[in-house]
Structures are given as C-alpha cells and as structure tokens.
C-alpha cells in the first residue's frame, strides 16, 4: 500500500484517465449505439440486417482484437489518427492512443448498447402502441407519450450493466499504451514487487468505487422514472 500512497498523484491520474476513457467512449457508444438501434428496429429491412450483422460481429469479437485492428492494422492502412494531436482541449492534447482506444471501446460497446435499447423497445407491450393508435395519436405522439417513456424505464437496468462492463473494459487500453489504472498498477507492481497485494487491493478498490458510483446513479435514475403500474 505504501507504494500507492507514495505515488498517490499517479494513482489519481491513472483513474482520471480511466474515467476519461469511460466518459468519452460511453458517450460515443450511446450515440452510435442509438443510431444502430434505430436502424435495427426501423422499417428499412436492409438497414435492419446491416445493424444485426454489426451487432453479431462486434459482440462475438474479443475487445482486444478490435484494439489490435485500431492500433496495429489501421496504421498499415494509413490511418494512424495522428491528426487528433493537433487539437487542444482545455490545454490538454488528445493523444492518438487515447483517440484510438476510445474508438475501439465505442465500436465494441455500441453493439451492446444497441441490443439493450432494442430489448427496451421490445419490452413495451404491443397493446400499448395499438391503444395509442386507436385513440388517434400520431406516430410522433405515440412515440413521445407511450412507447419511449416505457422503453426508457425498461432500458435502464441493461444499460447500466453495459456501462459497468465498459468501465471495466477500459482496462484493455492498458495493453495499447494508455497509462490508465491497470497499466499503472502493473508499473507500480513491477517497481514494488514486495507490495503487490496491497497495490492490487488499492486499484481494485478504485474500480469498485467507480462501479458503485455508476450503479448507484442508475439506481437513483431508476427510482426517479419509476411509476406504479
């Protein structure tokens, strides 16, 4: 444990990077996953099939292989994502490593986001929408007033699982040059082999705290949107 306290700023920085990866790729995955889900449940059958294929491919591919695609195969094709290093956000340069990791995590997680959203829409009983149409609501109204509110409630638990999995999956970025929590834990253990158990526990607790924050906030949201049925 002493090694962690001696390098506490490094510990915080590492988890900061983990959180950064989580937030950026979480937003990316929610956006891209929602687009996929729209394709998946939408009326155009070719887009249905394309989104289904995407989901099958990315759900059955190890995340590490997607990272290998982004970090090792893409540069050969001429995409090294160096251009992102020209941008500056609040005084920080975005590194190509960070960008690549976020893209890999986004591509992978969006498949699960798509499935969570689809299961939410499917959880709305058919009779609800039919009743809405029967009383003359338009498509937009029945979406806004009937389908989406119920789907949102059904989506929260699976979506939380997806986000928690994403939080834990950010650790894979450690293998591709990101000094996030797992990589830092490895480096610290390397330097202080006698304290490996304490270091492991310190980093495990960090992850557990983050996981609990995500699951507690989902619990709060769930309580907020819950209605008696």
């Amino acid at each position: 444990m002493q090694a962690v306290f001696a390098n506490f700023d490094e510990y915080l920085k590492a988890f900061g990077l983990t959180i950064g990866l989580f937030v950026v790729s979480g937003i990316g995955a929610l956006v891209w996953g929602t687009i996929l889900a729209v394709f998946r449940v939408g009326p155009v059958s070719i887009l249905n099939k394309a989104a289904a294929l995407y989901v099958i491919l990315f759900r059955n591919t190890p995340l590490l292989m997607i990272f290998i695609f982004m970090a090792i195969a893409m540069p050969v094709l001429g995409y090294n994502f160096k251009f992102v290093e020209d941008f500056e956000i609040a005084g920080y340069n975005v590194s190509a490593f960070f960008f690549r990791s976020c893209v890999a995590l986004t591509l992978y997680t969006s498949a699960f986001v798509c499935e969570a959203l689809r299961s939410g829409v499917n959880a709305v009983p058919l009779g609800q929408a039919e009743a809405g149409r029967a009383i003359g609501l338009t498509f937009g109204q029945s979406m806004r007033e009937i389908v989406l509110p119920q789907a949102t409630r059904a989506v929260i638990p699976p979506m939380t699982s997806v986000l928690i999995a994403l939080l834990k999956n950010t650790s894979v970025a450690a293998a591709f040059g990101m000094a996030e929590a797992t990589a830092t834990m490895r480096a610290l253990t390397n330097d202080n082999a006698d304290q490996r158990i304490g270091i492991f526990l310190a980093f495990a607790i960090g992850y557990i705290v983050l996981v609990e924050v995500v699951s507690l906030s989902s619990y709060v949201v769930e309580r907020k949107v819950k209605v008696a049925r």
Partner: protein
Amino acid sequence: MSTSVLFDAPGPRTIARHRIYTVISLVALAALVAFAVWTMYDAGQLEYALWEPFVTPEYIQYILTDGLLKTLEMAFFSIIFAVVFGLAFGIAKLSDHEWVRRPAWLVVEFFRAVPVLLLMVFAFYLLAIGDGPLSSFWCVVIALTLYNGAVLAEVFRAGINAVPAGQGEAAYAIGMRKSQVMSAVLLPQGVKIMLPTIISQMVVVLKDTSLGYYILAPGLTAVGKPIYLEFGNQVPTAIVITAIYVAVNLVLTWIATVLQKRLVGEKKLLDVPMVGEAHAGGSATAP
C-alpha cells in the same frame, strides 16, 4: 412489420418511400464496403503474398494448435473451474448462516466489480513472474475462473431461486435434509434453467482469454503477432484471427439457443441481478 410496436403495417405510399430508403442505404452500404476494400487494396493488403500464410498448411497448423487449441484449453479449464467456484459460492450465498452468506457475498461482489485484466496482471505478478510456480497460461485461467465464477455464482443463486418454492417445501415435508433438498431437488431442476446462461457465459470466457495477450500468455491473439511481424500482413492476420473467434463464438451461441429451446422453452433467459444491485435491496429472480 405489422407485429412491431413502433409501426402499423405500411400502406402503398409508405412502401414506396421505404423502397427509396432501401436504395439509398444499399448504395451507402455498398460504398462503405467498396471504400474499405479499396483502402486495403491501396495499402497493398490484398496481395496474395500477404494472405498466403493462411492457406499454407504449416501456418494453419500453427494457428490451430498454438492458437485456437490453447485458447480453447484456457476457456475449457476456466469454465470448468468457474462452474465449481460458482456452485460453491452460489449455494453459500443461499446459506441460512449469516457467517457463510456474508463472506460469500463479499467475494462474489469483489470479483464481479474488478476488471478481469487487473486480476490477470495481479495473478501474473503473484504466481508467474520471476520463479513463480505457474505459467501465464494458468494465470489467465485463474483470473477468468475468479471473475466468471463470481458471475456464475449469481447465476446459480438466481437459478435455484427460480425453482418453484413448493418443490423445496415438499422435499422438506417428506423429511429430507437441507443438503438433500439442494442436491436432489433444487439443483437438478435449477441446472436445467441455468444451462443456457452458463453456455452464454462460455462466449464471454472465450473472448476474455484474448486478454492473456497482455501477460504474454499463449492463444489465438498471441499467434497473430509472429505472423504479422514476419509477413507485414497486419490486416489479413487481424481479419483471419477475428473470423476464427467469431466462428467459435457463433457455434457456442447456437448451442445455447438450441439448449434454451429444448430445456426451458421460449421463456426469456434467466434474469441475473447486476453488480452492486444487492445492496439496493433488489433480489431479482426469474419469473
């Protein structure tokens, strides 16, 4: 489309509009595929020389024995140990004694919330590096066992809870002891409900064996590196290895679906509470 909650059956005008959307999206998808292929062609990654290793018997054998076989071995050992671990802790979580239930809950929650890669790195430094007693192969197995065992513990608990309460009560009524009720009545019925979920978990295990790459373990992901370092065929290698993973996982998913239909019927999969849900008072069980 008439069964969708989102739309009515389309009328003639909507069908015509959908036809236009279909054409547009077909063109867009075709353009995307063409662009991907062209990019690969432009970078010279479609040349036969780069794909040749994957039709050369020695390399096929290398990929299959040093890669796929090792990956399957790791996944096999992990899932077997994880089932044992999960069974022990799943039953412990259902124990009547608080001093058994609490520690079991703690262990399960801990290993479910910690990234499996962190566990792997820890096992690697604890047991493998220097003159440690185990190879990195077994460190991968240990990490996957702990993580998936914790997940399966939750599955077992939910599965046993999903057996109708009358079954256990009837068994107690005819004078069975607690261990008998568990082993002769609850588990045999619970396993039937849990089996598809366990097999789906095997897909997770198989995918996670690839994380061994970070601690220098063998496996399908690891065999790619010497091949692309020798031939400079990064893209073909990544495509071939990914295709093998996807194929194996699809076979597992197919088995899970068949078992699901055979054993459980068309009911939905077992509902397992997620990490951190226990303290929120949610002890969700299957319907």
